[in-house]
């Protein structure tokens, strides 16, 4: 077993580019697609050209500041226009006593968010002033604030067990989804090495040797496992420690990773058994694998796929279970009990696929 393992390693040691590429790809894909619903910080420059410019700027800035993702900075007209023209900032706001103008050079989604927000602040202020009439706006404002601190109706959302409902972080799901998905390729191509050895005649040499068949398979499969696991491990460590993502309980994530890898090695073995040659595998596998995350709903919010047939097909692959268990751990602090089912399902898939797969490979001649 050990020499078989080492021979695979020696082969790959000379050209580790594919694995490095896959690691890079996992991270880039997560960054590109995983950030869709995270709004970047937007900077907006505000200025006024009224005679009492400073007062106007101050008055509005107080109301405007308080948005999580938009920073408002006071500037002057020339500077602001220049920055927008250069594209250094996306938007500038020309403030007037009771009105505003947005200055921008493009129509990006974050500008709409700025526009909506500024509009809301101005409308509220206008309402407040209208309500105060000739009276004191400031007094009305503080009355309103203190009233709202103790509102007559209080709504609180609780999850079923009484805890808080965290926001579902789609980015985290995609992080796990992409990483596992791309690792499926690595695992598959390594498992396909068994077919390669069979075709080249190396397998026959091994059969004639004192090494047992079990050890020949274990050598290959263990290597596929290690490479797949290592790839995901590196990606997760980079996300967790370098890029500051909070993956939750990392050791649980890694246990799930290991079970997923085991299960996926088996599925790859099954596909190896179904196809006839390593070349066929190289055609079938890369066309089949990209469908799995789609069917498994990895790219969509949980519950989006309601077609029972698709759900069933998706559940036959370890990907959906792995991603589910990982998001549960990372987002909802799930314990071992909570992820027992997906882990058991992955192991079950693994046992079945491996059994059938090896049988089919052995029968083929």
């Amino acid at each position: 077993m050990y020499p078989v393992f080492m021979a695979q390693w020696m082969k790959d040691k000379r050209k580790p580019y594919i694995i490095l590429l896959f690691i890079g790809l996992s991270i880039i894909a997560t960054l590109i697609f995983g950030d869709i619903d995270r709004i970047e910080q937007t900077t907006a420059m505000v200025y006024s050209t009224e005679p009492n410019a400073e007062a106007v700027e101050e008055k509005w800035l107080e109301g405007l500041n308080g948005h999580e993702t938009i920073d408002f900075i006071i500037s002057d007209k020339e500077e602001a226009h220049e920055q927008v023209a250069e594209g250094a900032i996306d938007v500038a706001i020309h403030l007037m006593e009771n009105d505003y103008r947005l200055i921008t050079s493009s129509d990006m989604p974050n500008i709409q968010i700025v526009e909506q927000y500024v509009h809301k602040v101005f409308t509220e202020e206008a309402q407040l002033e209208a309500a105060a009439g000739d009276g004191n706006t400031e007094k009305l404002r503080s009355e309103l604030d203190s009233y709202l601190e103790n509102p007559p109706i209080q709504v609180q959302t609780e999850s079923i067990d009484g805890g808080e409902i965290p926001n579902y972080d789609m980015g985290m799901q995609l992080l796990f989804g992409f990483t596992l998905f791309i690792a499926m390729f690595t695992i598959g191509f390594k498992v396909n090495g068994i077919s390669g050895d069979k075709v080249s005649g190396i397998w026959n040499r091994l059969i004639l040797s004192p090494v047992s068949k079990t050890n020949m398979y274990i050598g290959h499969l263990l290597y596929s496992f290690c490479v797949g696991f290592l790839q995901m491990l590196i990606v997760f460590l980079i996300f967790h420690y370098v890029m500051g993502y909070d993956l939750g309980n990392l050791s649980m994530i890694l246990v799930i990773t290991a079970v997923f890898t085991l299960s996926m090695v088996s599925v790859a073995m099954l596909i190896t058994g179904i196809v006839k040659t390593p070349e066929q595998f190289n055609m079938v596998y890369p066309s089949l694998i990209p469908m799995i995350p789609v069917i498994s709903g990895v790219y969509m919010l949980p519950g989006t796929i309601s077609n029972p047939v698709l759900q069933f097909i998706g559940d036959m692959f370890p990907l959906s279970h792995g991603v589910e268990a990982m998001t549960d751990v990372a987002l909802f602090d799930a314990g071992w009990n909570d992820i027992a089912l997906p882990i058991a399902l992955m192991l079950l898939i693994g046992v079945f696929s491996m059994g059938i797969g090896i049988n089919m490979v052995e029968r083929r001649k």
Partner: protein
Amino acid sequence: MLETINLSKTFKEKKAVDEIDIYLDDGESVGLLGPNGAGKSTTISMISSLLKPTSGDVKLNGKSTIKDPSEIRKVLGVVPQEIALYEELSAYENLHFFGKIYKVKKGFLENRIQEVLDMVGLKDRQNELVKTFSGGMKRRVNIAAALLHHPKVLILDEPTVGIDPQSRNHILETVRKLNEDHGTTILYTSHYMEEVEQLCDRVYIMDHGKVVASGSKDELLSILSSEDTIQVQLSKSSDNLLEAIKAMKPVRRVDETSDGIRIISKKDSSILNNLVHAAEKEGIQITHFQLEVPSLEDVFLHLTGKSLRD
């Protein structure tokens, strides 16, 4: 010591190997000759326990190897027809891998690798990747990999197809030395008659899954002792003359060759006279005439109706 008894293999409908009996004595060098698809590789696979026979048996020292192949695997070295090596590894790394697989003891492995590399003449290229090797060099590594564990019996399946003369000579020399100096028993499969003539004490000729002839070189040649091969050069070619010769009673076959015709005929003293007369009648001169000593190639042609090389 190693023998097959009524060994047969049927793939679906096709009888690839049909009840063949082959034996190898200790220290012998035996050739297995046959055209493409004759069943040579299938026979070798069954002998080396890689393929289960449909019927018949393979015996090592009187014991069947089919139920328990562990004994035969211990004494056997097999050089497969294909290059069974990791192309992405160097020659040395390949041999190291197969040495480990064959459980060559750690202290001996390093020495043994250098020994077999020396035998096949690749010691100075051992650290280059196999995929950068020429076909002949790959074949030599392919052989080296089967020698690491000191096999008593070495089976080579067409080890010289499609390679340069230099590599070929090296391989033949290696096999000869193994047989003569180390007492290794050899089963050598080939398309090439002259290799087998050079290397082997005995020869089996296979065609369509059957052994059609066997014996020492002389025994095989005696098959043709009742026939003559006559090579004739003519002043010009003529279909009429060809027909006339074919019609002669003792003549078995007539082939046009690049520089005349070749006649295979039963031994018969009248043939020369008849030939001269027939040529005269057509106004053709016989410019060259030669009675050929039959070769194994002719035996092969006689038995299978096929030339050895396609």
